[in-house]
């Protein structure tokens, strides 16, 4: 399984580089230690000559005295993903040209995939080794009046007061960033999501050229009042992505084809995700509840005994709840949703479908990453460790611990750890369990 680390490269003179890099970081590392590590490479390393190179990537060999620092935490990773934000400054700088060529051709202890991003038309004048790759091309570039746009974007980002014009300028930059993140997310699915066992991925990866893996998105909705958002999401998936959308047209009971496909998909190693359109009637539709209940049932993917300790690995596919209730509507709660993230549906946001679908794919990526990382967690003698690829909540935990009644066990979950208030609740419900984060175990 791939455990990636990500490097974002940009030339120090590139005005958009740092903005893009930080947004990539916050997209792939949504907080509290979730997601793969993202590192930056831009300014010359300490001690480098003027206009010299940034620090080497982990394990990168430049000279006998310049080898990228590796530590226990970076050694866990087995795939380096290098996102190069290519602009005229990078292309015209001989030092950077040389480095990019080296990164492409030099052998490494880890597999390395380079994802070039064209920030302007000169990007295609990179050295041959990179030129042969397919570039990501964020929509909306190049930007005109860049300085004004960047000032407005920065004010907007720091929540400073902006004029209407500045708000629009900030939105212009933001839409380019969103386009980049969408393309990047789709490219990363090719590199990171599970594939059939027979498929061979070359050691030097050209990410964009790899066929996309199978991803199935299930759209759960109540026909009575949730159909419009569900249809718009389905149409977007069909027209703008290479994923399969499963949409229960007929709104029939759980014995339908939909549920069979759902069951089949959950049992296969491929990736499934669900978008539940939570309209006012959703909670009272038994088959909607059944769908989401089925989907939120964790699955045991591995059971590894080491010495006298045992690790059980569990997986949960991502769910996004699209809140589509009209203003002032009343409805019951849906406990099966657990701690799934919620997005408010809005007809005023033109690309709302894109944002929701991109988000659920991103969450699928993170889930896969956390599953891969879970496999590296050692067993502890005499302990039963249940290792999850999601943040635990009472509903999903009830499934996981069902076979271990009254047994003292450890739940290991992704990230740096839940907040005290959340852990208090979990400890109150599950006094026989000890909760640890990946970070606590791996560091």
């Amino acid at each position, binding site marked *: 399984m791939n455990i990636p680390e990500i*490097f974002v490269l940009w030339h120090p003179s590139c005005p958009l580089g*740092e903005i893009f*890099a*930080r947004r990539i*970081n*916050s997209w792939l*590392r949504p907080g*509290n*230690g979730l997601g793969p590590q*993202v*590192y*930056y*490479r*831009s*300014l*010359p*390393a*300490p001690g480098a000559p003027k206009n010299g190179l*940034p*620090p080497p990537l982990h394990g990168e060999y430049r000279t006998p005295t310049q080898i990228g*620092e590796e*530590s*226990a*935490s*970076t050694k866990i990773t087995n795939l380096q993903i290098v996102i190069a934000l290519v602009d005229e400054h990078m292309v015209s700088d001989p030092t950077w040209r040389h480095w990019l060529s080296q990164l492409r051709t030099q052998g490494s202890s880890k597999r390395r995939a380079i994802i070039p991003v064209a920030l302007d038309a000169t990007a295609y004048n990179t050295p041959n080794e990179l030129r042969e790759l397919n570039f990501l091309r964020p929509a909306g570039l190049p930007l005109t009046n860049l300085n004004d746009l960047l000032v407005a974007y920065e004010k907007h980002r*720091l929540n400073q007061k902006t004029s209407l014009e500045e708000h629009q300028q900030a939105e212009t930059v933001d839409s380019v960033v969103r386009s980049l993140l969408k393309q990047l997310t789709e490219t990363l699915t090719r590199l990171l999501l599970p594939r059939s066992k027979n498929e061979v991925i070359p050691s030097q990866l050209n990410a964009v050229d790899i066929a996309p893996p199978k991803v199935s998105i299930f759209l759960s909705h109540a026909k009575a009042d949730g159909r419009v958002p569900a249809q718009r999401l389905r149409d977007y998936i069909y027209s703008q992505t290479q994923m399969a959308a499963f949409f229960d047209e007929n709104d029939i009971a759980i014995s339908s084809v939909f549920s069979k496909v759902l069951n089949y998909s959950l049992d296969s190693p491929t990736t499934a995700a669900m978008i539940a359109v939570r309209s006012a009637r959703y909670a009272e539709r038994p088959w909607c509840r059944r769908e989401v209940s089925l989907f939120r049932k964790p699955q045991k993917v591995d059971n590894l005994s080491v010495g006298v300790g045992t690790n059980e690995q569990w997986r949960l596919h991502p769910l996004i709840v699209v809140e589509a209730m009209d203003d002032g509507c009343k409805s019951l709660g849906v406990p099966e949703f657990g701690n799934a993230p919620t997005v408010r549906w809005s007809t005023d946001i033109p690309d709302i479908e894109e944002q929701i679908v991109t988000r659920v794919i991103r969450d699928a990526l993170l889930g896969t990453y956390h599953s891969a990382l879970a496999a590296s967690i050692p067993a502890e003698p005499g302990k039963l460790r249940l290792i999850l690829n999601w943040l635990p909540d009472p509903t999903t935990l009830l499934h996981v611990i069902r076979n271990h009644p009254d047994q003292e066990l450890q739940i290991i979950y992704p990230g*740096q*750890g839940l*907040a*005290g*208030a959340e*852990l*208090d609740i979990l*400890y*109150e419900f599950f006094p026989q369990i*000890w*909760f*640890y984060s990946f*970070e*606590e*175990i791996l*560091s």
Partner: protein
Amino acid sequence: MSDKLRTRTNINKVIALSISWQRENLLARGLGLEHLRDLLLQLARPILRTGASLAYAGNWLEDEGNFTFDLLRLISAEQEDNSLGGPDTNIQLGLLYNHSAWPHYLKVTARIEAQWINCCRIVRITQQMAGICDPDFVPDQEATTESARSKFNGAICLSAMRRLTMSPLVLDIPDAPSILIPAIEARIIMGGKVEGFSGFMPGLFEEALVTLEHNKPLFILGGFGGGAQILADGILRSSGNYPSELGLEWHKEKSMNFARFLDETKNFNLPTNVDSSERAFKKLVNYLDKANSDVVSTLNTGLSTEDAIQLLTTSNPHQAVKLVRKGLIALGLLPSA
């Protein structure tokens, strides 16, 4: 409250964080503000869960690189709800101690203090507490002037503040019980600007100095640039010499404002417990010298020589966190996993 989640082993202990973001320093090492926030969270949360408090002398402006609000939000999220008369009602939870020297605390409004009163105790170090005599007091309304006396008193208060953090401090409250501010038990430093400071020496240097003087654990994360790296270089001296930033002359040459400040105030009297710039730099270099020959007992971090040196040099945030935790566990300031 869950015993599994929290202990109360470190109630009334305070661990100081002297961590600052300097964009170029970090970016040259392949890191950004996001990595620093991650690091801070990883360090602060387990400390809070032992019942210990944090000390961080940040300001109250909502700007990037100021971690006051990040820490407050963390503490707020960590605090149990002890407002409902439950079993934890009387348990003192870890706080943020925000030591603030005159005249900086004049900018802290009652509203800010009230908003965060359950998470934060602002400790104001007045001119009187700093040992300044009555005739030399500068009225608060003249604090912002560029007068030599005002700058001098400000520098004394900063110095005194750093010194006072190292001993228990009793704050008298009119018609109410006094409040005890515990001494700092250990300090973690990273980054830190060495130019443009407003005291007698760069703040991070002075914080390191007072910690070393009290023989308290000093974790120097030297691989991330700034003042901490200069201190690490001063200990390791891989180039054979002390970094020039550890000498008073370098600062006088580098900063006309600092040179002018020293010149304008050379005839002013210092309180007995405050060191002049010259004396403070000399004392710091002496301690670094001592650490060079015995890093384990001088820095007192509970780490082996090999680990202590690695902490001084690593630019990997995970490695740094791992080593600091290891040291804190060895010192009994964190429970072992």
